[in-house]
């Protein structure tokens, strides 16, 4: 029931916020803020109310099921484990951040804006909760549409093209996923006689286990575009650059995560054999992404475009972690999702605040701001450091886990992923230099010394984000424990070291019947 609440809060909040426009724009903002905060609170309640996960896999801590279209085996089935709840908590928090970031930026059609924002959040929440593939696709499309309008209506100068590009890329991936879902549905029905979209039923289904790589690739297409994996990334910089700040925060912090979540929740468990076949390519795509994103961030002149490419780099680690085939790497990938949501969300927030103050995102026209904006510099430094993987902040732990997990599978991929940290350092220090330390631009722009520094709610949100990153960097164990159980089927080895392979196989053979791993062994081929 609480899961239904999680889903309804942003939906209802969006409608209420729109309705509140008849009162005043401020009422809209407060309504939206409360809705996002409530989402966070409910997620926290769900976290604490169901501490013990159910037996079996996935380790759901809460479920909600209602009939939707029983004739076709479609049910409205929501389910959450630690990973989902952590990501939904992130959703609520970034929702708050998005509303705060829009406080001064959005002045046109305020009600509609917050409606779209909250519905995008609702769609993301739905993806994180969906335990029915039809529902998954429904929510997947639902989060796409408001995002399109956020970019197309409230974006910057080139918004229409960017929004269209975003829509075409994600929709192309989404339609491939629809085909794959339908094929899986039919294949499962033909094999077993039970036509259902239910996730747990399809899990371990002979149809899915014996499915060809093409079926898995349908899912992979949607998730890899959303992630985005190189070379499917070109929509991201444009979308980020043109989106309003809140849109960027939601896009980077949450929508990209839905792609990563899809890999962890759907592709890997549903198609173990096909995933193993895809893995080598995915690993190299991830490694290429880490380097290429970092490399491309460096020459960008547009601050938001810059941050967008850093996202490409980070999501490369997630892709590596997802396909490394070890529990260490999967946990790292999941942790990276949380950390990246915080660090990049914060960087977009800062970019928006800078744009608000300096009136430009062009780094060529920014410079020497340290004297005028010391607090902004401090925050930027902190989040850039997180972004470049400084130990003590969350991203490092996540990236280390990913690299440690992949090392025994492919040392070369791990080495490339580590080498990307050099490129990250280059873009990180360059950002700080170019905007804050470097020479101020030629006169003619606004007097930099009179720019107002970060204060109030923005600073508060950033402070919470910093605290979160430090917590995840210094004592991530609570988060690690919560998400670890859900990241992969229980038969995934901790570290895929060759020496351990034999032992793990032995353990799997001993696994008691009844758990999915065991059941799968007996499944008819």
């Amino acid at each position, binding site marked *: 029931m609480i899961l239904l609440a999680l889903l309804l809060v942003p939906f209802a909040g969006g409608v209420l916020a729109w309705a509140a426009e008849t009162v005043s724009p401020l009422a809209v903002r407060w309504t939206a803020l409360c809705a996002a905060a409530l989402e966070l609170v409910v997620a926290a309640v769900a976290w604490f109310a169901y501490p013990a996960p159910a037996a079996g896999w996935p380790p759901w801590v809460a479920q909600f099921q209602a009939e939707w279209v029983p004739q076709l085996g479609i049910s409205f089935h929501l389910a959450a484990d630690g990973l989902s709840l952590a990501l939904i908590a992130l959703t609520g928090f970034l929702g708050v951040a998005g509303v705060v970031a829009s406080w001064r930026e959005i002045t046109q059609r305020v009600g509609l804006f917050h409606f779209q924002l909250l519905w995008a959040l609702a769609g993301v929440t739905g993806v994180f909760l969906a335990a029915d593939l039809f529902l998954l696709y429904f929510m997947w499309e639902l989060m796409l549409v408001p995002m399109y309008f956020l970019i197309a209506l409230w974006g910057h100068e080139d918004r229409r093209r960017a929004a269209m590009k975003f829509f075409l890329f994600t929709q192309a991936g989404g339609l491939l996923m629809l085909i794959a879902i339908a094929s899986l549905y039919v294949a499962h029905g033909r094999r077993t006689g039970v036509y259902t979209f239910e996730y747990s039923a399809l899990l371990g289904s002979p149809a899915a286990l014996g499915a060809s790589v093409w079926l898995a690739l349908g899912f992979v297409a949607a998730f890899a575009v959303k992630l985005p994996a190189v070379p499917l990334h070109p929509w991201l*910089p444009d979308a980020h650059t043109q989106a309003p700040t809140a849109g960027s925060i939601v896009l980077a912090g949450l929508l990209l995560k839905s792609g990563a979540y899809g890999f962890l929740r759907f592709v890997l468990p549903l198609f173990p054999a096909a995933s193993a076949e895809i893995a080598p390519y995915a690993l190299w795509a991830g490694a290429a992404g880490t380097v290429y994103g970092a490399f491309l961030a460096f*020459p*960008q002149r547009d601050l938001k475009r810059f941050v967008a490419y850093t996202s490409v780099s980070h999501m490369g680690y997630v892709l590596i972690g997802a396909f490394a085939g070890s529990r260490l790497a999967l946990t790292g990938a999941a942790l990276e999702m949380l950390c990246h949501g915080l660090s990049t969300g914060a960087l977009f927030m800062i970019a928006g605040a800078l744009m608000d103050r300096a009136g430009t995102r062009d780094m060529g026209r920014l410079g020497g701001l340290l004297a005028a904006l010391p607090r902004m510099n401090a925050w930027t430094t902190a989040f850039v450091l997180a972004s470049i993987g400084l130990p003590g902040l969350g991203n490092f732990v996540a990236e280390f886990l990913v690299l440690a997990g992949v090392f025994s599978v492919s040392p070369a991929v791990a080495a490339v992923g580590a*080498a990307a940290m050099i490129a990250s350092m*280059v873009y990180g220090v360059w950002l700080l230099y170019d905007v804050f330390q470097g020479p101020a631009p030629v006169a003619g722009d606004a007097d930099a010394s009179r720019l107002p520094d970060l204060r109030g709610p923005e600073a508060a949100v950033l402070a919470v984000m910093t605290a979160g990153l430090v917590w995840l960097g210094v*004592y991530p164990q609570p988060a690690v424990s919560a998400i670890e159980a859900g990241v992969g089927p229980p038969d995934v080895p901790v570290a895929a070291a060759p020496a351990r392979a034999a032992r793990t196989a032995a353990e799997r053979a001993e696994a008691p019947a009844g758990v999915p791993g065991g059941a799968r062994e007996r499944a008819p081929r």
Partner: protein
Amino acid sequence: MLPLTWAIPALPLAGFAVLGLAGRRLTPRAVAWVGAGSVAAAFALAAAVAAAFLAAPPAGGAFSQTLWTWWTVGGLAAHVSLRLDPLSLVFVLVVTFVGSLVLLYSTEYMEGDPDYSRFFAWMDLFAGSMLVLVLAADFLLLYLGWEAVGLCSYLLIGFWYRDCANGRAAMKAFVVTRVGDVALLVGILLLFTQLGTLGIQSAMSRAVDAWPTGAAVASVAAALVLGGAVGKSAQLPLQVWLPDAMAGPTPVSALIHAATMVTAGVYLIARTGALFAIAPGVRLAVAVIGALTLLIAGFSALAQSDIKKVAAYSTVSQLGYMFVALGVGAASAAVFHMFTHAFFKALIFLGAGAVIKAMDEDRDMFHMGGLKDRMPLTFWTFTIGCASLAALPLVTAGFYSKDLILFESFASPYGDVWLWLAGLVGSVLTALYASRMVLLTFFGPLKREPSGLPGPRMAVPMVTLAVLAVVAGFVQVPGYLGGKPLFTGLVGAGLPARSSPLVGAALASAIAGVLVLAGIASAYWLYEPGRPALDRLVATPWGAALHRAFLAGFGFDAAYEAVFVRPYRRLAELDRGDFVDPAYRAAGRLAAWCGGALDGLETGRVRNYAFGIGIGVVVVLAVVMLR
């Protein structure tokens, strides 16, 4: 006392937290108390811990403390745990002691700076991180300290942000050291995945058990660790960042870029000595890198005119000595040199800082001169520091530590006479540039009146360090002088065993001593203001070429600029629009073209459309017919 070990790094970190959160609201006086006081308290605590440790050494020669589990995934875990053994004890004492002196000095040196509290916040963060680095029992925690000190170095080099050159120097330092850091990270990954543990000690013992001497995997791991050490300790080929790092305030150079952070590489190799012991090829590489670095840096120091750059190159050179010692398996000798070097090099920087402050931040030695009588205290302490750097025989600490290294470089079973010769040449060079600094700065005609003398808060650290630059060597007087190897005896307990000095040590020392004296004498002949010898030498074509090479640090900067920096930038600029994007744009154009091709069908004429319908009907009927 020992269970309080965790508080040693915690105190400076607490100071950082206070200053970082509330620094702007504190008075400069309070900032100074918090900033310097936290490190001084850490020193007091460290001294007490050291006393307890020495009085009753814990079982196994080390005290371990696990604070909390960082993370654990399926049985593999990283712990936030500390390990105090003689090696880390020496580093802890040096870091806290020199740190508190330098911070005391800074309270006066940085007075009036608008970012006074920011300076102390970062210095405290540095001290805390450095202590975490040397106390870490886990590779990952060590790496945390490792990166955090690099961060502080970056922040403090660029401290005076109004000059963009400082920002660029900071960038360079951070990026260049990151290259080494990544090597270290990959090394840690390799050790972790192969040995299944992140604990330094357990990894070392498992490595020795699992890998035979000379195993490829051990060599790769050792080489990667060496890569990290080379970056942090500014050794060939990553030495280029340290001379530029002098852009930071002088106390920063004294503490971070001379006494402590740059010796982290030495610490790391000493700590993982067991790994290098089973990778003889890499161990030899350590020595060779050290020898080459000490020569190149020594020559480069000869030609610099910036007083801090001379000191920086000398630091690189002295670190080269330490690497030679590590490479021949004499880790305790390396640590001993680190110990004395921390005192005399910090002293030299603090003295240089006093001079620079008196010259209003002018660092060019050729603008100085004749300060001997105007700044007597600075002169005497600085000269003592330089004498110790030059290893003036018998009376300075530097002599004893360097002598030990020179001796080990050929007497050790892994030593080689070529290493020894390189060391001897290096000590002549050291004598030359150390004397040159003193001569150019303090002798000759007075070129500029100093604008102020160091006050008590600057003088006390300088005098204290001057005393230590002399007496610190007496803890390790060689056997032929009737001394006992106290220091190496202590540190060696936590390190691989070393052979004791043999006959011939005295002769070797004598040769080195004579060379040092000769070097000082020739420096007087070459550099004493008013003598034309050097000018004539530089005027010859060969002399000019050499001078240019020395001044440019043998052109490493230019080479890296041409090979790495500029191609990277050019390629990046070229790729700003993303090479992948045009592929999608081409797909879009293809679709548009297809649309254009079909456009011809769209005539707008009703009868054409009707014709189309008619064709459709015909086709359908044809299908019906032919069924």
